[in-house]
């Protein structure tokens, strides 16, 4: 009698750890041709759209009708590397070392035009302009490294509606005395230089001084330029309408009245020192013609009239190059959302989900494994695409004469990597929606309508009031596109801070967090339902 041994498979017992689940899901993803193709199509579309927008955005100017067309000039670059606008009227003397400049401002008045192309009309360049100051009209004293646009500076100024300010190097801004300047309540301003350090003071009476700010200007040359200035951004009125928002406006002029000008330190001797008036301005600045600007001097009394602005460039130009070349994000996102939704809905359709859950009964872990695999694959595909798309598209834009704003390396890296992360999180959101709805069409529509439609409505603009648009870009998954924001809004510049100009209501990572929160919420709900429902 021999005992019959029961059959035992030679194969060892399979392990069921999370690593095995990941491997199983990766095998599924890898071997379904449609998903791999969909991911590749998404990546290719991102690169393709960068080429399309780059190749079709030509920027050229023809200074004279018979001459050749030239590439659009770039705005000047400030000490921090960002684009700035730097045009104003400068009444200056060289300051060859340490010294100080004190002045009393007794009034700030202004004129503005309600439509562009104003300077051409009439005999007087200011004929027909409306009296009034802009909120950020400014007049005061400035110490600047040179008369070159974009050079370092520090200034004390009175403004149209924001009181006394100290501003430096375009992005720096500190508040001094509040209230408007007038003959009854004049403002005293003082700048002192010692080496690279500039201190700004203000005073209401000329005897009690308050320190407003201390700044260090890097590489301030031994001989800097100091003096009085006046500038004002143009008048703008934005009207939103269906199909687009339009801004109308025109150049403006600010005039400051100064007296009690006193200089101490390394200024030219009072007998030889002459004040030089200069219109600091670039080729493309929308300012009044030089004849409208200027200064008058009677003893220590001055009036200075200037046009233009000394401020960071807040995107009057509209589109940002890096966003332009990433236009394909939206196209690629739809492809990856389709893949993400199918990653689970196809299992339901084919009945594979029952095999999956038999092999691995812990359903939450299955969903987690799917999310990890999907996020990894879409992030990698998205990253490859954006790493190729950004330099390629910017190269094409540059070839077509578009100026490209220099970005800090960290910002550029955040945008490139963040866009890939945005795509991955959107795909995971689609996966969760697919698990919730079990219908591909429903899941894809829900995610596309949640992510792309709010952005479209915000950019298409005008359709909804600004408040509603902002709200949509805060609470819907579309908030995630904030990760692509390359510029930050400045409190000291009035501009149209809208998504169409590259500004989002939430900070980059906060917006991305909103999208992640949606994905997390959907994943949690999907896990709960996966456990409760029959597969």
């Amino acid at each position, binding site marked *: 009698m021999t005992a019959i041994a029961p059959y035992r498979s030679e194969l060892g017992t399979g392990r069921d750890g999370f690593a095995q689940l990941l491997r199983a899901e990766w095998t599924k993803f890898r071997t379904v041709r449609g998903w791999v193709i969909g991911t590749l199509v998404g990546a290719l579309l991102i690169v393709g759209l960068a080429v399309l927008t780059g190749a079709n*955005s030509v920027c050229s100017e023809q200074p004279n009708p018979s001459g050749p067309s030239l590439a659009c000039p770039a705005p000047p670059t400030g000490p921090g590397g960002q684009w700035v606008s730097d045009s104003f009227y400068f009444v200056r003397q060289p300051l060859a070392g340490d010294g100080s400049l004190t002045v009393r401002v007794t009034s700030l008045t202004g004129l503005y035009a309600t439509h562009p192309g104003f300077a051409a009309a009439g005999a007087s360049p200011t004929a027909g302009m409306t009296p009034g100051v802009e909120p950020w009209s400014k007049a005061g004293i400035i110490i600047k490294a040179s008369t070159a646009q974009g050079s370092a500076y520090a200034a004390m100024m009175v403004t149209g509606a924001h009181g006394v300010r100290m501003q430096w190097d375009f992005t720096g801004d500190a508040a001094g005395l509040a209230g408007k300047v007038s003959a009854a309540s004049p403002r005293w301003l003082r700048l002192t230089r010692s080496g690279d350090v500039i201190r700004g003071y203000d005073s209401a009476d000329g005897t009690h001084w308050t320190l407003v700010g201390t700044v260090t200007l890097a590489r301030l040359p031994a001989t800097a330029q100091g003096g009085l200035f006046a500038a004002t951004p143009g008048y703008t009125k934005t009207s939103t309408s*269906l199909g687009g928002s339009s801004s109308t406006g025109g150049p403006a002029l600010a005039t400051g009245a100064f007296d009690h000008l006193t200089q101490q330190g390394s200024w030219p001797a009072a007998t030889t020192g002459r004040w030089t008036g200069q219109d600091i301005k670039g080729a493309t600045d929308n300012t009044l013609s030089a004849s409208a600007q200027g200064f008058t001097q009677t003893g220590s009394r001055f009036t200075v009239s200037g046009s233009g602005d000394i401020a960071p460039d807040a995107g009057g130009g509209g589109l940002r190059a890096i966003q332009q070349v990433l236009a394909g994000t939206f196209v690629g996102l739809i492809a990856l959302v389709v893949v993400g939704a199918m990653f689970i809905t196809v299992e339901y359709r084919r009945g594979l989900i029952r095999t999956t859950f038999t092999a691995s009964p812990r359903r939450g872990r299955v969903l987690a494994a799917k999310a990890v695999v999907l996020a990894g694959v879409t992030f990698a595909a998205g990253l490859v695409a954006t790493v190729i798309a950004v330099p390629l598209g910017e190269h094409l834009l540059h070839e077509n004469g578009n100026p490209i704003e220099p970005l800090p390396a960290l910002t550029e890296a955040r945008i490139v990597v963040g866009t890939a992360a945005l795509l991955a999180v959107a795909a995971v959101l689609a996966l969760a929606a697919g698990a919730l709805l079990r219908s591909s069409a429903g899941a894809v529509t829900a995610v596309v309508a949640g992510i792309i439609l709010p952005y*479209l409505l915000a950019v298409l603009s005008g359709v909804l009031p600004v*408040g509603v648009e902002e709200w949509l870009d805060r609470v819907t998954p579309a908030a995630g596109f904030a990760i692509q924001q390359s510029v930050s809004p400045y409190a000291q510049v009035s501009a149209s801070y809208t998504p169409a100009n590259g500004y989002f209501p939430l900070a980059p990572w906060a917006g991305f967090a909103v999208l992640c929160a949606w994905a997390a919420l959907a994943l949690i709900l999907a896990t709960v339902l996966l456990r409760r429902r029959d597969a």
Partner: protein
Amino acid sequence: MTRTLHAEWTKLRTVAGPGALLLAAAALTAVVGVIAANAVSCPGQACQVDPAKVSLFGIYLSQAVVAIVAVTAVSGEYSTGMIRLTLAAMPRRWQVLAAKATVVGAATLVTGAVAVLASVLAGGALLARHGFVPAHGYEALSLGQGAVLRATAGSVLYLGLIALLGLGVAAMVRDSAVAIGTVLGLLYLFPIVAGFIGDPAVQRHLDQVSPMTAGLYIQATTDLRALPLTPWQGLGVLAAWAAGALLAGGLLLRFRDA
């Protein structure tokens, strides 16, 4: 053909999804339209707001739901294998597609008519209270005006054409997710991509061929001269997309194994 139509009608009627989705589409159109009408106001002259477009704002969203209905009417049959039964019972494949187009299109038109009418009436009443009054250069929104009638009727046709576009695309690609992704991509991506292109001439061309942007020109009642196409030409662009998709879908259905 009557029997084919009847069969398709029975399918559409007895499957749980389409009825609920069409109702949802109608509700979305009206509700979003009311929200939009509530959000705008015209304090004085020259508001540059087109009241018909505001009232019909819900179409931006509800067209996606209509697209789901249309896409699943075809791709749903492929995912369950029902298509083989359908084609065995009704071997004339062109006729099957035509019957589907008729039934889904008609259902969309009926729902769309109700939704659009409700939006225009509710929107008109709300807008009149938000400063869109004759004193500010706005007549009350009524179907008696030619332009408003065109916007209303045109929006119903727009939804119908979206349904046909969805059917055509679904017949081409057969998979729900890919089909809906393609349809929504065609609709939503053209205006976004156009917005990123710096050349106004290229932008204008993209707007002229974009199914959604051009198709929705039919909703314009003010400032028609600023449009790159006339309203009916715009709807014609969408019709061309829908016809092209149906034709391609029909050919693939005819010559491909199911």
